[in-house]
């Protein structure tokens, strides 16, 4: 408990707030990495997932690949990439994109797969084009699961972005690495606490997002189900949720 208190004390110490080495800067770096990673990963994984979900093809290949990718140790991947692209921002971003893709991909295609086949058939039968079926039926109805996938990917990236500083990319991991080097446990703990807080904030934002983006009719349909997964149903189906720091693979 005493150590935990010292961790918080370190955070609240005004000396650690401003400047290039300050908490503000480190949080922005951490969020910056997370944002860049999530945007790149989404641009790759969402269209691919939608394609798989709509056509029903390539699913098994992607599942197998995702399984393999999930087993990669992120720190190893960062080091490996850093060997070829050098120290800095690029290596951790690539490694984290690889880490984030499987969850987003799964959210995207399982969202499409969860749409009742009869609904899609009916949409086609009344004269929607394939494109209209995707944009007006599958995307809105698949949204809950996609957001679930983005949510767990973001959580993983926030936790694992701690490793970015291993190759000098900054972020909150800096406190953990430099604390470890100097046996400064309060500083290490401060780093962990800040990462946890970011993760909690992200969770809160995603649950708000989920509430505002999930179509009202879908919520109504869910509430009607007798076995009623009423409270935030879709989120519970999202991928495995790792404990925060444990989620960072070393």
């Amino acid at each position: 408990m005493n150590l935990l208190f010292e961790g918080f004390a370190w955070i609240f110490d005004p000396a650690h707030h401003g400047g290039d080495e300050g908490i503000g800067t480190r949080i922005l770096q951490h969020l910056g990495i997370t944002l860049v990673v999530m945007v790149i990963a989404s641009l790759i994984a969402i269209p691919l997932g939608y394609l798989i979900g709509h056509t029903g093809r390539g699913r098994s290949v992607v599942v197998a690949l995702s399984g393999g990718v999930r087993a990669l140790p992120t720190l190893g991947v960062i080091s490996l990439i850093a060997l070829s692209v050098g120290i800095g921002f690029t290596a951790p971003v690539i490694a984290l994109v690889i880490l984030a893709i499987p969850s987003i991909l799964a959210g995207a295609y399982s969202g499409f797969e969860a749409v009742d086949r009869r609904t899609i058939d009916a949409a086609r039968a009344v004269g929607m084009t394939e494109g209209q079926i995707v944009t007006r039926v599958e995307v809105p109805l698949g949204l809950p699961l996609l957001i679930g996938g983005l949510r767990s990917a973001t959580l993983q990236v926030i936790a694992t972005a701690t490793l970015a500083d291993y190759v000098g990319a900054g972020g909150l991991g800096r406190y953990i690495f430099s604390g470890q080097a100097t046996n400064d446990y309060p500083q290490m703990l401060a780093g962990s606490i800040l990462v946890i807080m970011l993760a909690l904030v992200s969770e809160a934002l995603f649950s708000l997002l989920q509430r505002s983006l999930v179509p009202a009719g879908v919520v109504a349909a869910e509430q009607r189900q007798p076995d009623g997964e009423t409270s935030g149903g879709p989120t519970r189906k999202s991928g495995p949720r790792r404990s925060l720091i444990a989620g960072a693979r070393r």
Partner: protein
Amino acid sequence: MIEFRAVNKTFPDGTRAVENFSAVIPSRTTTVLVGSSGCGKTTLLRMINRMVDPTDGAIEIDGENIADVAAVKLRRSIGYVMQNSGLLPHRKVIDNIATVPLLKGVPKADAHRHALELMETVGLDLSLAQRYPAQLSGGQQQRVGVARGLAVNPNILLMDEPFGAVDPIVRADLQKETLRLQRELDKTVVFVTHDIDEAFLLGDQVIILEKGARIAQQGTPEEILANPASEFVADFIGADRGKRRLTVSSTAQPQGDDVVLIDAGGYAAGVISAPDGKLATGHSSPKSRSISNKTDQAGDA
């Protein structure tokens, strides 16, 4: 007029769903395709809007081969109503009804105004317009499905067991409404059911199908009832079991001018009006076929 010319359908897995089917479906009448499960009714129906393309043979609408019409364009010109209503769960009732007009670029205000009119046409309370499908009863959902089918003002309306999933009372109600709509709107309706009573009630023409969509008999309900073409048909319409033969109950006391009729199983089937204890003869109205034992429906369904 819809014409099937020697149509075959073999699915990729080798199932021969339709074998050499030829028939003419006249305009502005209701044709009912009836037969037991798996005989190919849905496959036939979905060939009319190109949801299924025939393996060979041709289907013509007013003389034009539909294979030459773009599928999306064709579908937007034909109303389609299915058993589970097929409504979009994330859209309000009014937007579901207006789906196709909105796709076609009809201004939203116009499409919505027309949708509200259609809600009246199919007997839906206008207060339901802002609800989502999940907030409606099964019968109400079916009415929305019918309204959506009518929204493009199609000449042809395809209905695939539209009342299969509602209880007998709501079903009877919807059947009555369908008869009324038919009189009012004058569409070419192709209706699929496995319920022979429903077929006889709604059809101007009834086509009884065997496996592979082979025609067992085709004709008006009166023709089929009076003259079943085969053992299969007689069995299917229940004639051989004497189910349709009604007799005057000897036990129930006549209530005023009404006499209770009982069926072959001994169950009350209905009442018939007999002023002064005498059954009138020869003045049966054209729709008298609907006397066919309605209480059977739940059992047959």
